[in-house]
């Protein structure tokens, strides 16, 4: 399969501080890459560079074999989703989803938005304002708002970080289904190893501005620094103690 997104030697510094150092990454078409990293590791900066919201100090962002370094975020068709759903508080759930479509001056907005609300299981909440929605419902609307404009690439910055475990699990399934159904390519940032494994087709890890992309999930499991083996040992030990 061909490479859809390629980052070539991306570096970023703020004043004297180096945030990203020679980052290389590739993502295939219609695949999801899980990106693991602790707070302050540079993952948000990396996503913002891909989205065009930050400029890299060095390196290239290549999307669909085109260098998009100088392309403004409006023209990239790359949607960046934050941990906070960031719904527009003055717009209803329906209007939030319709936001991008109205900018594109599309026709049949009502039908498109209703179809999206239906697929999100949110049709009965269409007229509600964001302050009337739960955390999980807000995140669904945020997904809908991003997916309805059919982006080339979806960047998700710990979107389920603020949700409780049950809703989080439901959202992971919903996300997988939607991404597959729409044939989307995405980068999913998380600091939860389990979530990274469930969501991603591939896994990369970023630490102090340096990125390692694993060849396969298996090579990720086998790498000691991934923390997978430590996690398995922990649960095994717990199971043995219980028995």
């Amino acid at each position: 399969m061909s490479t859809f997104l390629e980052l070539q030697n991306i570096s970023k510094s703020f004043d004297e501080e180096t945030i990203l150092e020679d980052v290389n990454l590739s993502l295939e078409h219609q695949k999801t890459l899980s990106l693991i990293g602790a707070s302050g590791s540079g993952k948000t900066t990396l996503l913002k560079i891909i989205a065009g919201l930050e400029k890299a100090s060095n390196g290239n962002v290549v999307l669909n074999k085109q260098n998009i370094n100088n392309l403004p975020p409006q023209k990239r068709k790359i949607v960046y989703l934050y941990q906070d759903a960031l719904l527009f508080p003055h717009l209803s759930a329906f209007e939030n989803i319709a936001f991008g479509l109205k900018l594109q001056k599309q026709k049949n907005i009502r039908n498109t938005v209703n179809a999206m609300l239906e697929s999100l299981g949110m049709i009965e909440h269409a007229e509600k304002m964001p302050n009337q929605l739960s955390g999980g419902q807000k995140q669904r609307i945020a997904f809908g708002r991003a997916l309805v404009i059919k982006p080339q690439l979806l960047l998700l910055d710990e979107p389920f970080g603020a949700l409780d475990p049950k809703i989080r699990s439901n959202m992971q399934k919903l996300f997988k289904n939607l991404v597959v159904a729409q044939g989307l390519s995405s980068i999913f940032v998380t600091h939860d190893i389990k979530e990274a494994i469930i969501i991603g087709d591939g896994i990369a890890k970023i630490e102090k501005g340096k990125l390692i992309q694993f060849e396969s999930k298996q090579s990720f499991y086998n790498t000691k620094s991934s923390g997978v083996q430590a996690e398995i040992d922990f649960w095994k030990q717990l199971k043995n103690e219980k028995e």
Partner: protein
Amino acid sequence: MNRVLKYIYACLVVFPVIFLMAMSFAEKWRFPDFWPENWTFKNWSSSIFGQGDLLYSLIVSLGISLMLASLVCVISFFVSKEIAYSKYRKTYMKLTLIPYILSPIILAVIFQYYFAFTSLTGKILGVLIAQLFFALPFGIVIFNNFWNDKILSLEQLTFTLGATPKESLLKAVIPLSKPAIILCFFQSFLVSWFEYGLTRFIGLGKVKTLTVMVFNFINEANVFYAALACVLLVLPPIFLLYINKKALILKQ
């Protein structure tokens, strides 16, 4: 107890307005009489419809205050954004406090030479610019708290959804900033509306706003006209307060 306090508060606000209103219709009201000798529409008819001096002052005051409030809202909205996302935010915000350390009249004395040099003294434009020096930092302080990481993230989100900077401003940022805009407009209007020293000094007494007229009438010991000017001075802020409250309630 709460109800009693509410009534006391209402009396404190309403009584001066009623008293001033009564005085503006009075003629020959001397101490220790409880009521004036005559009630008359003469004060109102001559100053509003006859000589028209107070009507002119009302229009000038409204013009200056509305223009100033609008200018402060627009300029401070954009300037405060630049300041809020600048790495020198704290330094710039300290600078905005300078007009509060110096009183408006001291500011007027400092700048008077430049106003005279540019022939702006004694002119409405001069008064407007002078008031802007004082009110603009005020607006920047009001908007400063509006610009935070969440607004920045929302703005960036609109860009990734395909919005141009103009679309992002009109469809996301301005609707979100409505309460701050209303507050800024209202406060700036009041700053200008009740401003006396700076207006008098830069306006050389030729720019006759309502506050200038009130003091003129008081100096002339013309209490009935002073009361009339005060009524005109008090009513627009009350009206604005009512609209402001209604807008915020509707928003909620």
